[in-house]
């Protein structure tokens, strides 16, 4: 187990050590202590590493992650796992705004709640939230799955493209062009698999599905009220 003590070294030194690991490294288990809300912790990882961050972090923890498994044993600021491509990012606490923003792949698990714009502009990532999510989540979400065990804030899925949203609790309101869709057997199977991967216990049958009505895909003056 390698240790990065952010009381003793700065984020640059820690990230530099993580980035410098050779492809055949056997130093794959890392523990980051005293993160003290630092920004950009463990960003841009490209290897199958197991990184445990023991505490709270600031913005963009595990940003643009590829392959690595990053676990944050605390809360995190904006943009956790932003634009991640693959691997797994897990937040034991709550996540602030724009969690998983524009993520292309991999899985982001937030065991607590997530703030506004969770999954904004998502492009293929799977996001599973144990608690609730804030307003304008999945805004302009293009692809991937957002599974929410709690409630969703206002304007869920505004201007949605082809991402699928599953919510177990109440939805405050749907955004432009987002509609409730039939929860099929295939959807239940998919949600069950996502929950299992995320390690979150919930009954897939209790979720409702939301997706794009696709009425805004091509401009028409009669839809002007939606713009």
């Amino acid at each position, binding site marked *: 187990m390698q240790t990065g003590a952010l009381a003793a070294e700065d984020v640059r030194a820690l990230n530099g050590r993580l980035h410098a690991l050779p492809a055949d490294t056997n130093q794959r288990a890392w523990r980051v202590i005293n993160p003290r809300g630092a920004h950009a912790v463990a960003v841009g990882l490209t290897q199958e590493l197991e990184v445990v961050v023991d505490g709270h972090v600031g913005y963009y923890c595990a940003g643009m992650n590829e392959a690595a498994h990053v676990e944050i044993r605390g809360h995190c600021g904006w943009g956790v796992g*932003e*634009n991640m491509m693959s691997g797994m990012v897990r937040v034991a606490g709550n996540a602030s*705004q724009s969690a998983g923003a524009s993520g292309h792949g991999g899985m982001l698990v937030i065991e607590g709640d997530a703030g506004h714009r969770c999954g904004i502009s998502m492009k293929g990532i799977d996001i599973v939230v144990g608690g609730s999510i804030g307003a304008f989540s999945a805004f302009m979400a293009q692809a991937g799955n957002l599974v929410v065990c709690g409630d969703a804030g206002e304007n869920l899925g505004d201007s949605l493209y082809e991402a699928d949203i599953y919510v177990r609790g109440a939805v405050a309101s749907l955004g432009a062009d987002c509609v409730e869709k039939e929860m099929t057997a295939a959807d239940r199977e998919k949600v069950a698999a996502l929950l299992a991967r995320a390690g979150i216990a919930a009954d897939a049958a209790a979720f409702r599905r939301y997706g794009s009505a696709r009425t805004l895909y*091509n401009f028409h003056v009669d839809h002007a009220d939606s713009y």
Partner: protein
Amino acid sequence: MTIDPRNARPSAAFPPNVIAEIQRAADQGIYEIRGLGTKRRLPSFDDLLLLGASISRYPLEGYREKCDTDVVLGTRFAAKPLELRIPITIAGMSFGSLSAAAKESIGRACTAVGTSSTTGDGGMTEEERRASKLLVYQVLPSRYGLNPRDLRRADAIEVVIGQGAKPGGGGMLLGQKISPRVAKMRTLPEGIDQRSACRHPDWTGPDDLTIKIQELREITDWQKPIYVKVGASRPFFDTQLAVKAGADVVVVDGMQGGTGATQDVFIEHVGIPTLPALRQAVDALVDLDMHRKVQLVISGGIRSGADVAKALAMGADAVSIGSAALMALGCNKPVHVADYEALGTAPGHCHHCHTGRCPVGVTTQDPVLEKRLDPEQGARWLRNYLSVMTLEAQTIARACGKTHVLNLEPEDLVATTIEAAAMAGVPLAGTSWIPGRDLR
């Protein structure tokens, strides 16, 4: 029956083109969308003149005495700043808006003359990475195609806040240009009218931008220069905020800057011209004692070596061109005239980039039209044009007695109109008057 001229008096408020636009809007129910930049007359570099050497200043001998043109961008924090042989770069233009052949032409030409080209909304193509020795990778609000691999193989990173044709607006690519390849790169369904976001998804405001830049530097191990590009509306404050946020380079795009597709009302009515934008950006850097420490790139309506020389004299470190580069590749060239006519236009007037029916293969995804631009030929044209611009700028710099184009200075400039004098902050020709000198 003949028309009585007394009854054919045009209205200043409702001239024929305004009437036609009102009726087009009534007929089609959508605002006009088009490409390229503003068509209105604005104070510009044309309204400035350079003061050649006289008794008080020695000129340099043309072709005999050296006038250097190299410039280094990104010297503030980046371990590997961009070393350019000429102070003219190519602005960000997307694959999707442009054909792959156009992107490849640009990359090849830039490599040949020793300058950089820039990706656009939609990500980096293999063709442009292969063709471009120095490639700037844009991080845009849409994040289409953004990935860490391309971030690392870029030579610089440009965080795009806005562009001169539409400060405050996002991108637009109409369905007819969303080909299977473009759709795949952007993770979108084919054929939809794609509107890119106008705000970044994971930060708002200058304090967040500071942290975003820190993240990008961490991901790329502080190797790459980080540019911040703004559309010109409040360039004094935007430049200072970009510097405060940690930018190595600030790119300011004036309202003469082009676009692949935007509402005409946006292009013509939002933003400020390049001339005052440049002066305000330079003022901002001087105010912070960061002029020449954070490099400034200006764009928007740069067309000639004279424009380059004037921009450098006003304090820019380099310029960037977009529309002019496309014109070097054949945009609006009088060939395939019937295809211009099919679009309802003519060579010299075309702004139909948004349709995807570009008659010369520059702004299209149509496989037949795209073949009209041979990347090798396109590269030669653009290379020639960039070389001519550089030679023109050198000619002027030598005449002003400068051994380097970056030695041009505001004292080498005068303005021919009061408006340009006020906006550029240089004296009206024949006077020592700089209108508004004490005002910002």
